[in-house]
């Protein structure tokens, strides 16, 4: 069953939008706007998953969509916002690599993923191919984000965008089982991270490993 061109276009639009939003994330250098972009990201994911559920008529995917919508575009962003406010992080600019550079890299990554995916001349139809190509670029962009950001929270956000990419890919894969379970599992993971930041006040520590600590505690000297 090959879907109608309209369905194709809509799915394509959502997926492409997701990539676009990933780029938006890349050039946010303040935390609060970044978090807003994240919820937008998750929202788009929710929409595209829902759309996939519709065209593949797999009702269980709606669950995933709901999780994405409720949990990832509302609850987590709220939690993160409170955290930022509490830790007085909302002022700081914290990009490790310049934005322009990051954007260039991002474009390169998208090109790479396209190049890789488009040579897949599978029976898997165009929709799947496009979809996975976009998912791949979202994943890579999220990874790039994690690599280029110093702050814990923005790394969480990067991780979540990776996860969104995965869900996108999973949902796009026709009839893939366990997508729901996986999305749930991932939400648990993210929850863990957020709780971790919350409980242990990790702040930027999980970025900078301070060497006194190493000397004092680990018996590992430089």
């Amino acid at each position: 069953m090959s879907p109608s061109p309209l369905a194709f276009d809509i799915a394509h639009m959502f997926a492409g939008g997701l990539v676009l939003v990933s780029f938006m994330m890349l050039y946010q250098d303040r935390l609060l706007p970044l978090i807003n972009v994240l919820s937008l990201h998750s929202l788009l994911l929710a929409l595209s998953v829902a759309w996939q559920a519709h065209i593949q008529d797999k009702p269980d995917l709606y669950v995933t969509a709901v999780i994405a919508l409720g949990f990832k575009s509302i609850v987590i962003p709220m939690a993160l916002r409170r955290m930022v406010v509490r830790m007085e992080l909302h002022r700081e600019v914290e990009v490790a690599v310049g934005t322009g550079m990051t954007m260039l890299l991002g474009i390169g990554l998208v090109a790479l993923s396209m190049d890789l995916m488009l040579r897949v001349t599978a029976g898997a139809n165009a929709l799947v191919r496009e979809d996975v190509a976009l998912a791949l670029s979202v994943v890579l962009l999220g990874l790039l984000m994690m690599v280029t950001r110093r702050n814990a929270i923005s790394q969480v956000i990067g991780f979540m965008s990776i996860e969104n990419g995965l869900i996108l890919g999973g949902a796009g894969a026709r009839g893939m089982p366990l997508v729901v379970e996986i999305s749930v599992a991932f939400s648990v993971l993210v929850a863990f991270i957020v709780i971790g930041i919350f409980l242990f006040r990790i702040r930027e520590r999980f970025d900078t490993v301070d060497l006194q600590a190493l000397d004092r505690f680990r018996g590992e000297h430089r």
Partner: protein
Amino acid sequence: MSMPAFSPIIALLLTSLIAAAALAFVRDYRWSARLNIFASLVALLFALLLFHSRPPADDLLLADDLNVVFIALNAFVGFTTSVFSASYIGHELETGRLTPGYLRFYHVMFQLMMFGMDLALTANNIGLMWVAIELATLSTIVMVGIYRTHEALEAAWKYFILGSVGIALALFGTILVYLAAVSAIGEGMGAMAWTNLLRHAVTLDPSLLNIAFVFLLLGYGTKVGLAPMHAWLPDAHAEGPTPVSAVLSGLLLNVALYALLRFKMIVAANPGTIAVGPLMITLGLGSLIFAAFMLCRRRDIKRMFAYSSIEHMGIIVFAFGMGGPLGNFAGLLQMTMHSLTKSAIFFSVGHVAQVKGTQKIADIRGLTSSHPLLGWTLVAGVAAIAGLPPFGVFMSEFLVITSAFARAPALAALAAFGLLVAFGALLLRLGSIAFGEPAGPLTPVRASYLPIFAHLSLVLVGGLYMPGAMVTWFQNVAGLLK
């Protein structure tokens, strides 16, 4: 899932689950420790039962020649570790590093981790296996952080973040494999079952498989601890409770390796794909040599052995990358020997660290004088892990090097170089740890030598004499692996 009346696999899995649930309610840590041991013993029995009777594979679970080896190893080391941890945690309670509450948590997590690993090993479904490995990882993460000291939390974090990224990559790879399969096999669970995937390997989409393998190699390679994804491993080993270090080195790395092997089988079976051998060889050699050099500068005893685990994983991946019946045989043997030896080493290191009250190599001296039995067992363990006869690692490394040498002498020479450097580094530390004037407290140690001796004697026997049945079994598996 509709199972026939009794399946050892189900029993194995249920044992761990039930034990985990039950342990959550046991207050007294002695009883929980005993229960833990008992559960592991039962699990071991069921695992051994698998050699005797194997249920047919369904689309969720399977037991074949390959994973039974892993399962048995898993259950055995799990059992010995539980025995060791029973004697270990008592001391931790006395020193107050752990509270009873955390201890309960620890036991639950231990069984959960065993469950996760068993599930990962028995899963016939790439998605299920992925979930299982994630479960095992999460449980180990919380156990690594259980001391809640600054560095423990930090190690847990490192592990957590890198592990999660690894998980993400692995999942993407999994999805890609499914996509590659879906056209050939059809939608649904069937397209995620090992058995089907292997059967239809030829018809899968090669270019998708390539990309998938890259993601899986990096994703599960993170768990295996291959450089450059290794960063979590040393800290996790060093800062967590020693039983966890033992299980990490002895088992979890193997489980991730097992996943890699499964995917390697599929990808290798497909003619259109890139050669996976060179990729694995590169990563393996890289990790081997990198870890060898890292060993030279270690000052923390547990971290040192963690790096030696990376080194050995490098050797094993190198061997499997070389492939061929001999190479795979060598890899399997090396993996088994390494699990046994390394966990034995961690057992003794745990006692050493407890009695000396430190993990700093500089503060641990003259063990063979202060604690002869413990010291000499450590010496024996290090000799074994360094690949000296009469221990089994000598045989496996001999096979690895010779089988590699027959095909690619230059690579074999590189590997030998790495082994030599690592050997020197280990020996350098051993000299100061085991010999010379004793330093630190001389209080006699209440160690549980049973697990250590069990492992070492197995390794010793393996080095001297391998029963024919075992050999043929390993050869079958090696044949399966291509």
